[in-house]
């Protein structure tokens, strides 16, 4: 039934740190790999080696430039996948009951054998989290790796979504956002985790941690123009550690000078 549950026992979801994401797209690749080989229809590609390649992905990384009123612009890498919303508009519009939100953990899933591929759920999602698979004709979306997180055949360390497990910069965190004492909830509280498009009223479970100010970029030494007018932001980091040699090297330096 595509009615949403009143409450869910847990609110499993992701916390994505926009401060640490380096935009390497490793999570995109591991997501595509795991979800092509496991639960549901594979994530197909169309014309993958041709002139106009496209394909189904459940996780995509945008990059934005943010220009404050004062100071240097920031480049922010922005991973985006299903936010497993509490008021998921994609679920209630589904005419067949294929889309549903689980009571036990709040994960939003698609029962692919019931999906008629009408696409209305993707229309209702403001985040672009759902993509119709062109080969299979059914809607694909992030499952929060439901076939990993409870999978007792995997070592315990691997029982997290593939994107979280693979992230080399630790920018993705997985846990129960309904439990105020969980690590992810503490992280959200400490760093001021935010919702995307709160005005859409979807109440996303996934939270985003805002990037910290890049104060180093605006230090006077960094922004002082060089003679050619260029600004070298790396200059302060490349300055010599010591101008004058000391200790044994200092003695050696002087001794060699005298020769």
């Amino acid at each position, binding site marked *: 039934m595509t009615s949403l549950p009143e409450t869910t026992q847990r609110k499993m979801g992701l916390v994505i740190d926009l401060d640490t994401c380096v935009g390497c797209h490793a999570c995109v690749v591991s997501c595509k790999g795991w979800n092509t080989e496991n639960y549901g229809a594979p994530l197909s590609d169309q014309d993958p080696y041709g002139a106009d390649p496209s*394909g189904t992905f459940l996780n995509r990384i945008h990059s*934005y430039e943010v*220009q404050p009123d004062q100071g240097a612009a920031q480049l922010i890498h922005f991973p985006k996948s299903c936010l497993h919303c509490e008021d998921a508009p994609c679920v*209630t519009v589904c005419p067949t*009951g294929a889309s549903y939100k689980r009571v036990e953990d709040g994960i939003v899933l698609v029962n692919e054998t019931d999906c*008629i591929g009408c696409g209305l759920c993707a229309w209702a*999602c403001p985040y672009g989290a759902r993509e119709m698979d062109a080969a299979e*004709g059914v809607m694909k979306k992030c499952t929060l790796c439901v076939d990993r997180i409870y999978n007792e055949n995997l070592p315990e360390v691997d029982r997290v979504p593939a994107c979280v497990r693979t992230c080399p910069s630790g920018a993705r965190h997985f846990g129960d956002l309904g439990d105020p004492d969980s690590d992810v909830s503490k992280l959200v509280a400490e760093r001021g985790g935010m919702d*995307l498009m709160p005005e859409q009223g979807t109440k996303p479970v996934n939270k985003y941690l805002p990037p910290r100010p890049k104060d180093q970029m605006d230090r006077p030494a960094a922004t002082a123009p060089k003679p050619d007018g260029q600004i070298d932001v790396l200059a302060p980091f490349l300055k010599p550690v010591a101008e004058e040699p000391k200790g044994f090297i200092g003695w050696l330096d002087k001794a060699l000078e005298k020769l």
Partner: protein
Amino acid sequence: MHPAPSVIIFTTLSGLGFGLLFWLGLGMPAVTGWVAFAFFAIAYALAVGGLLASTFHLGHPERAIKAFTQWRTSWLSREAWAAVAALVIMGLYALGLVFFDARWSVLGWIGAGLSLVTVYSTAMIYGQLKTVPRWQSPLTPALLLAISVSGGALLAGQVTAALILLPIAAVVQVIWWVRGDTALQTSGTDMGSATGLGGIGRVRAFEAPHTGNNYLLKEFVHVVGRKHALKLRGIALVLGYAAPVVLLLLPFGHLLALLAVAAHLAGIAASRWLFFAEAEHVVGLYYGKR
């Protein structure tokens, strides 16, 4: 939004078909026998033809029967029920008129009501979507109902009703366009709220997640043809609303009536193309495409 031909054909034809059924249900015109058969055949061809066209864009049309299950939450499911109920009731009503020369008025009134409910449900599939601010308004069902009932009057030969309703529909159409043009800006959703980065500064899409095309861009970020939007609005107004009124005011003739219906259909098709092509889905903000 991508203006898929199947959805344009579906909403245009079935809207007109159910509009005609509405008038037939009211007994206007009060036809029986073979004349009634001809009227109902046209209405069913339009309504059912439109509904069939809508299945062409499904990934799995063979499972379409499952769409009847979720009427409690889904307008698409409600539309399926309303359409079948309207067609069955009006079928029984037509049976009496065509073969028994009997007018079962109550059936006709119920069928007329269900025809309007069907058009309303279709409109609410679009009107409910917060993700498309241009559509999310009570004006959307008002527009689709006005077009359906006025087009139905035209097809049913209700000249007086058509002469009143077509200008009303044209006014609703213009109000809908004017409101829609600022709907995204006034919705409060922009790149700042989409990324949550608006508090830091001005957000610009620096690099897309993928170099090629994808489902989201094809389905939701249609921008081709918007430059002709104003011309097409003119064409829709002239063909869809003004031309039928002028043709109805001329001395009556079947050829003129046919011309009026053809002009109306062409105009409404143009209006419906714009309905989709001009609609901005908020997901485009993530791509900086607005």
